[in-house]
């Protein structure tokens, strides 16, 4: 009974994933020989190419950006710059793609500017360039945030030692910065690779056609346009196999000892005064600014100009549907996360550490199970039993909840463990168990991370285009779908207002999550 929440959550997660796998295998198996292997190989090749390049550029730019920000702790507009980076990394893909098109598309700012000088840049954006720009737009800021946090955790004594020993910038980079970057880079690169490998909205909007199709988009097209379940199954199988082979190393690599509490975050780095470093940092910051700022500005400015187009019935319907999906999806994700984490904690307290790890393992593996692959598998399994399109809303909620699970777990697991360490024995001795323990003992520590996780999960679900497009079948209209449809119909001004609305919602949820997750453990001490 005490482990029931965990086992129930585990049963639901594994049930969905196993059913999806069965669906994929059923679809792919019997007709494998007749599949267009040349096409599959070209899709796979392009998926790997764009994900590999996106990851490499994001990691390099992210590391350079983190070092520049670590050295330049004061410059005009630094807080705005960092806010823009944060917004870029949490913006729904569909909104970022809109912003990039508004800047670099043929009719965008760059195109207009080029034509003013008598030069037509053509449609260079669509295909690999556009996909790379969008992926780096999201992931370089993400990488910078991770690297910056790790650099801030370097003990203050190391910076003092560097100054004391007279280390020049190259030695300082080799002896302090590089070990930090090398330690974080593998897991971060694997995560970014997974995100780019399974990216959907960006490829759909910026891919420019079948030549630049990725596995995720090809699965969607196989089911939705060609009704070719065998092809979809095979592509999904390939995708899951490749993602899993990356997810396991990620899990392994991210298990490393925690950082020391003595941080050098507030100390001036000895290399900050170097003239060469000033030039390097200026170039890196300018490059990142040029990548991130214009699309955000384009979303803001064009959205404000077309703000009146928000007051229409289809926008209201899309917003209502989006929230009707996002709120239950976030709640389900949180319920699953708390069930898993609480049961894992109980197992760990009983000395069953391996079982405890196994209990939360699905949270780490979910990123390796792409949403479109799960959707395709569920679609195939459900088709003989019911109309999957008729069950669209519950299915979208279910898949979105699963996709948000790793983020929810990351928020709620640490406070539950801390609560057990501090008050576990006291609660046991007083006989406080079950829901009462959650309410009386855990909730004061859990409340803020819980709200943060809720905001993150809701933001992820609100920005989802892929799953909603897969099951939507034209009957369901969410905000990202509405934006995509308006873009497809060349209603650019009307798209802009929806993009701005989505950006504002994402920003509000991100700020709420950031506020609630702000060192929750320290607050409780």
């Amino acid at each position, binding site marked *: 009974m005490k482990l029931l929440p965990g086992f129930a959550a585990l049963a639901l997660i594994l049930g969905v994933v196993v059913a999806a796998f069965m669906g994929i295998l059923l679809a792919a198996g019997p007709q494998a020989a007749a599949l267009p292997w040349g096409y599959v190989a070209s899709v796979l090749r392009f998926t790997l190419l764009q994900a590999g390049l996106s990851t490499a550029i994001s990691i390099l730019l992210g590391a350079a950006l983190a070092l520049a920000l670590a050295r330049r702790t004061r410059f005009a507009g630094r807080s705005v710059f960092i806010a823009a980076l944060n917004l870029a990394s949490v913006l729904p893909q569909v909104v970022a793609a809109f912003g990039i098109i508004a800047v670099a598309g043929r009719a965008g700012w760059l195109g207009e500017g080029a034509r003013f000088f008598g030069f037509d840049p053509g449609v260079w954006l669509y295909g690999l360039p556009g996909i790379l720009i969008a992926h780096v737009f999201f992931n370089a800021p993400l990488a910078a945030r991770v690297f910056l946090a790790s650099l801030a955790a370097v003990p*203050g004594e*190391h910076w*003092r*030692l560097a100054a004391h*020993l*007279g280390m*020049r910038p*190259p*030695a300082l980079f080799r*002896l302090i910065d590089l070990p930090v970057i090398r330690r974080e880079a593998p897991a971060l690169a694997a995560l970014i690779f997974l995100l780019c490998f399974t990216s959907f909205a960006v490829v759909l909007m910026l891919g420019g056609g079948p030549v630049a199709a990725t596995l995720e988009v090809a699965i969607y097209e196989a089911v939705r346009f060609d009704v070719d379940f065998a092809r979809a199954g095979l592509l999904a199988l390939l995708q899951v196999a490749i993602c899993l082979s990356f997810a396991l190393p990620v899990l392994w690599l991210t298990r490393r000892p925690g950082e020391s509490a003595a941080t050098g975050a507030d100390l001036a780095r000895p290399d900050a005064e170097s003239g060469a470093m000033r030039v390097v940092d200026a170039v890196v910051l300018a490059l990142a600014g040029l990548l991130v700022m214009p699309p955000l500005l384009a979303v803001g400015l064009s959205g404000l100009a077309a703000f009146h187009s928000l007051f229409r019935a289809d926008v209201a319907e899309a917003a209502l549907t989006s929230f009707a999906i996002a709120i239950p999806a976030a709640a389900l994700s949180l319920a699953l996360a708390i069930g898993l984490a609480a049961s894992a904690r109980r197992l760990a307290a009983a000395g069953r550490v391996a079982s405890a790890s196994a209990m939360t393992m699905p949270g780490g593996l979910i990123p390796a199970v792409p949403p479109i692959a799960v959707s395709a598998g569920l679609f195939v399994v459900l088709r003989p039993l019911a109309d999957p399109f008729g069950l669209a809303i519950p299915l979208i909620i279910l898949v979105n909840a699963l996709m948000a699970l790793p983020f929810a777990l990351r928020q709620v697991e640490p406070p539950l463990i801390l609560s057990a360490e501090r008050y576990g024995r006291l609660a046991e001795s007083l006989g406080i168990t079950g829901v009462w323990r959650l309410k009386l003992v855990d909730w004061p520590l859990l409340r803020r991370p819980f709200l943060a996780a809720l905001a993150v999960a809701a933001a992820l679900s609100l920005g989802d285009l892929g799953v909603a497009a897969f099951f939507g079948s034209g009957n369901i209209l969410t905000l990202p779908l509405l934006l995509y449809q308006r873009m497809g119909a060349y209603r650019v001004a009307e798209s802009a207002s929806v993009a701005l609305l989505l950006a504002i919602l994402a920003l509000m949820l991100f700020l709420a999550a950031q506020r609630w997750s702000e060192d929750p453990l320290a607050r409780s001490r």
Partner: protein
Amino acid sequence: MLEAVDLTLDYPDFHARYTLSVPAGALCGLIGPSGGGKTTLLHAIAGFEQPSSGTLIFEGRDLLRLAPAERPLSILFQEHNLFPHLTAAQNVGLGIDPRLRLNSVQQAAVERALERVGLPGLGGRRPAELSGGQRQRVALARALVRRRSLMLLDEPFGGLDPGLRQEMIALVDALRREEKLTALVSIHTPEDLGEAADMMAFIAEGRVLAAGPPAEILKKGRDADIDRYLGR
């Protein structure tokens, strides 16, 4: 001679003003309550903190004009003295060349320094493979190869058990006598310094409230603040 006169540091919530003279070759123990300003004084001497006014002279040189790396001193912190990804020998070698381009003579000097602090043959180990005391010995070896005549030790043995603390103090005392170093050691428990200290300075609220021979400073009834600090 190390001489700080009205060395002033201003922070939003802390104001410090130090005046202290330490004779050349002496070992001066800095004692006082936590948060009283012992570390701030050591960091100001090392160049990590910038005084707003005052003078700081060592062996006739104005230290305030020098960058941290140019000051004729070595410093040991309580922890994080070593880079975890470098071996003990490499950590010592940083004291000779921060780019770690050491020739055979310099490498031999590193080996010798490790021997002098009682770690022969352990140069290939990384900090994680050494005990707390051994890690501090490596940091001491680095201070030796730097060949600077002022040594600052900021609660360097606070994390060690009492027996090991005594052993390390004895090692510091022996090394500073051999090398004719002036040493400032901030310490929690004055008894740990035993006979090693030539003088003690009691620091509280950002001031040197008393300085002189240990027997005089620690004498019961001499100063109410010191008595309170020592729990008398």
